[in-house]
């Protein structure tokens, strides 16, 4: 794979050059007083930060139903955010024409709720900080893809700390050829290695009920999920939840029932509905006011279900989502 080795400051230069056009925008990270957060830059960069060690929300959430109509938007985001964008594109929620998606090597993140003051915002210091996997969010410690290898282009960091810009699509090719430097072979070994495989997720309903005991059905997890995109969600209103007679019926059939009613139903159905598109970013857990370990369930279930079709959410633009396609000769053991 060919890419360009960049001099320090070249990314900022290129972005500033890109922003000179009135119609161009950059969605990236801004380093402010209270930490690092998402920002849309117009005109020029200001307190720009390439990496963001804090995770609050997945930026693909802001891209839903974004039809840029001639504007050009450059995304300089984490791999999980770019993967969610790729999935939203497949679900026809984002138009791809005017968006250039650049994924940046991710070192891991800490929860923005924790308010750790000692987290550095520079790439070279973060490697040391996240040496110990316990210091990052659980979702990041078991992340499936922390390398910037998704989207139109990627920013990679090699072992000696040099930045590389690697194009993956034609659009990325255009972007990278406009930057300073010569195309060279990209080293195979980078600072961020390929993620290790995690164990198969296995649980029972007792543990599930215990974990979700605290759920208050605020549905923040649904609202902050980047890929849970339906406007008319089945859980808007209470048509889908057992109520009145149906609730008593459920209690008589299944025995004692936790309240608020239907929370097991809500989480299981949502788990299935996002199963093929879940990127395991952990935004749901971040949004949960009760601290339920949602990532464990959503990531575990989605990894198993994607495994059935050897699919990985957000890996490429060309792979269709498994539920909207089929092969005639497959899954022989699905029927009983």
């Amino acid at each position: 794979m060919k890419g360009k080795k960049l001099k320090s400051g070249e990314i900022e230069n290129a972005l500033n050059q890109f922003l000179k056009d009135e119609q161009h925008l950059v969605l990236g990270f801004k380093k402010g007083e209270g930490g690092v957060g998402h920002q849309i830059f117009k005109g020029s960069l200001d307190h720009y930060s390439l990496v963001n060690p804090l995770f609050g929300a997945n930026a693909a959430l802001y891209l839903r139903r974004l039809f840029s109509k001639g504007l050009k938007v450059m995304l300089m985001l984490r791999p999980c955010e770019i993967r969610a964008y790729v999935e939203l594109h497949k679900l026809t929620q984002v138009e791809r024409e005017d968006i250039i998606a650049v994924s940046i090597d991710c070192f891991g993140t800490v929860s923005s709720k924790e308010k750790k003051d000692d987290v550095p915002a520079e790439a070279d210091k973060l490697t040391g900080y996240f040496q110990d996997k316990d210091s990052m969010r659980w979702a990041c410690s078991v992340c499936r893809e922390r390398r910037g290898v998704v989207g139109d282009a990627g920013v990679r960091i090699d072992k000696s700390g040099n930045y590389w810009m690697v194009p993956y699509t034609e659009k990325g090719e255009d972007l990278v050829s406009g930057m300073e430097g010569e195309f060279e072979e990209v080293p195979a070994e980078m600072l961020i290695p390929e993620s290790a495989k995690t164990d198969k997720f296995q649980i029972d309903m007792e543990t599930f009920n215990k974990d979700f005991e605290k759920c208050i059905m605020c549905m923040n997890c649904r609202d902050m999920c980047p890929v849970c995109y339906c406007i008319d969600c089945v859980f808007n209103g209470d048509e889908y939840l057992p109520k009145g007679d149906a609730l008593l019926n459920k209690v008589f059939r299944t025995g004692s029932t936790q309240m608020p009613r239907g929370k097991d139903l809500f989480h299981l159905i949502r788990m299935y509905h996002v199963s093929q598109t879940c990127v395991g970013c952990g935004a749901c857990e971040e949004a949960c006011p009760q601290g339920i370990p949602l990532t464990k369930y959503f990531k575990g279930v989605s990894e198993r279900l994607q495994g059935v079709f050897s699919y990985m959410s957000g890996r490429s633009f060309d792979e269709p989502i498994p539920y909207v396609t089929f092969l005639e000769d497959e899954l022989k053991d699905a029927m009983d």
Partner: protein
Amino acid sequence: MAEDEKDKNPEIVGFCCSYCTFKASEMAGSLRMKYPEGIKVIEVPCSSRVDPAFIIKAIVEGADGVFVSGCHPGDCHFIKGNFYTRRKIAALKEMFDAFSMKDKLRLFWVSASEARRFIDKVTTFYNDIKEKNNEREKA
């Protein structure tokens, strides 16, 4: 309903495609064949009409088992509906497997003329679930 009475007679919800399996169940009726009364058949236009959310809702709200049944792959009235069903249900089975309740869901292919096959399939499913429930009762 008393607890033990319910366990004796598990309740099973079946989503049956109106062109094949539902026709087979009607044919079984006209041939005076018998299947357990705990099986509640719901007619759907095509097996791919079944959103897995229906299945999850049925199970969470107290069904002992759910089956989805449609035409044999390739014979769908809407050309390719049951290929999608197969993918969706295979994934849902994997999810139920993760929650250790894989035995609660089954997928059959039964065509309109296969009344006997329909009876066989649903009766086996019913008996398996009944056995499981009795085992759990003893434990």
